[in-house]
């Protein structure tokens, strides 16, 4: 894949945006291997909207043509319910891109969803609580027009 200076800058921004330097349900550093970064792309095959963390299952096609299902960890679904989570927000069959790190146990095909996006790079949800910020209302209108969450 090409690596122009633009994409490097964008990747750098993505690091800042995706990082969650806060307390959480568990220490991500204990679960995922910082020496095993991954980029996954493929259709959603199953969703587990469960606590404490949602898991998105996607099917990737490997270089040899075989497929493999990976589980990608997200946050609590309760927050997304309050943001209007619907069955079609991430429907089975939707293609997504994930970058993150694989679990320390490499026999598991699991990773954290450090940055989960649609294939055009847009986010699956906006990080808002519907409190009416102008930027948010405009984005929500645009996305509603496209049938998105």
């Amino acid at each position, binding site marked *: 894949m090409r690596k122009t200076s633009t994409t490097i800058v964008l990747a750098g921004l993505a690091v800042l*945006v995706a990082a*969650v330097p806060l*307390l959480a349900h568990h*220490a991500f550093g204990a679960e995922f291997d910082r020496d095993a970064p991954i980029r996954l792309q493929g259709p959603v095959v199953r969703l587990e909207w469960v606590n404490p963390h949602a898991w998105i299952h996607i099917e990737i096609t490997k270089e040899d043509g075989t497929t493999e299902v990976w589980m990608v*960890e997200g946050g609590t679904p309760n927050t997304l319910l309050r943001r209007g989570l619907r069955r079609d927000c991430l429907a089975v069959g939707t293609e997504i*891109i994930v970058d993150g790190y694989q679990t320390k*146990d490499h026999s598991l095909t699991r990773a*954290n969803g450090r940055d989960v996006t649609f294939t055009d790079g847009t986010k699956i949800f906006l990080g808002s609580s519907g409190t009416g910020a102008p930027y948010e209302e405009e984005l929500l209108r645009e996305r509603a027009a496209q049938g998105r969450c």
Partner: protein
Amino acid sequence: MRSSASILTLALMAVAAGPLATQALGQATGWVMPRTADGRPDLQGNWTNATMTPIQRPEGVGLALPVDEVERREQGRWDRIQRGAEASDPDREAPPVGGDGSTGAAGGVGGYNNFWIDAGNQVAMYNGEYRSSLIVDPPDGRYPPRTEAARARIAERRAVRRQHGQYDNPENRPLAERCILSFGSNGGPPMLPNYFYNNNYTIVQTPDHIMIMTEMVHDVRIIRIGTPNPLPGEIEPYFGDSWGHWEGDTLVVETMNYHPTQIAQVGVFAGTSKDLKVTERFTRADENTINYEFTMEDPSTWTETWSGEVPFKRLPGQVYEYACHEGNYALFNVLSGARAQERRDNGR
């Protein structure tokens, strides 16, 4: 700025009017204290204590924040949320080997997207005053110094934990990771925001009991109302043994007999002893607010008692089930990862 003009005007009125502002606003809006059938203030409903205001205050800052500082802080939070909502490069590659430089719980692997986070995006307003910290006493807004005995207990608890590797078994993992208690002191008492998500509560009230359910990890407290008949000292439930009584229109709740594992946590409980006593005071301030005060007493832990004030605002929506064990793959992954690492280290 996200605030509507009318909210800003009310806020300015409140700041100008001082501590009596809430009462004045209540009178101005014709608000009448809702009451239960037995005549007590009705505390029931869904509430949230999510806020940007930290528990402790940075040194040298006053308790009350001026409106322009509040606007600056809230705008900064909104700018960060907006950046988190921006699209990423679809041609991005995998993140760097060796970690992405993220810190804290993100642990160098980056956590997950900002859209999962709901940390609170407003500065706490209490009795019409914007606040720089939840701690109000000591007056500097900081934890009082811990005693020698408290420091010894912290060291002793650490030594006990270190008898075994932190990934040796589930029991050595933190209570939140094991789905036993919520983050930080979310379930309390004292019930404090976790600065992450799900800072939501449901209160159900009868003449002789109050139930408070914290959304995180489905923590449920049962407070008995009446003359205390405390549990024997050896019975130490999570969230302690809570007894409540009414002082006028304020519900006062005193809690002791904490579970030793709960008070062995870091954070507000660090170093506390079996004698920890927490007193909470719940007062309806207006239709959308409960004023929540708490006082921490443990003479062998702190050189003085300390207190905080937290606004609980009405939650515009539902509190959802948080069936934590249902999908706790993370705990499995952490332990399984430690075993895999051991095999790699041993060349197997």
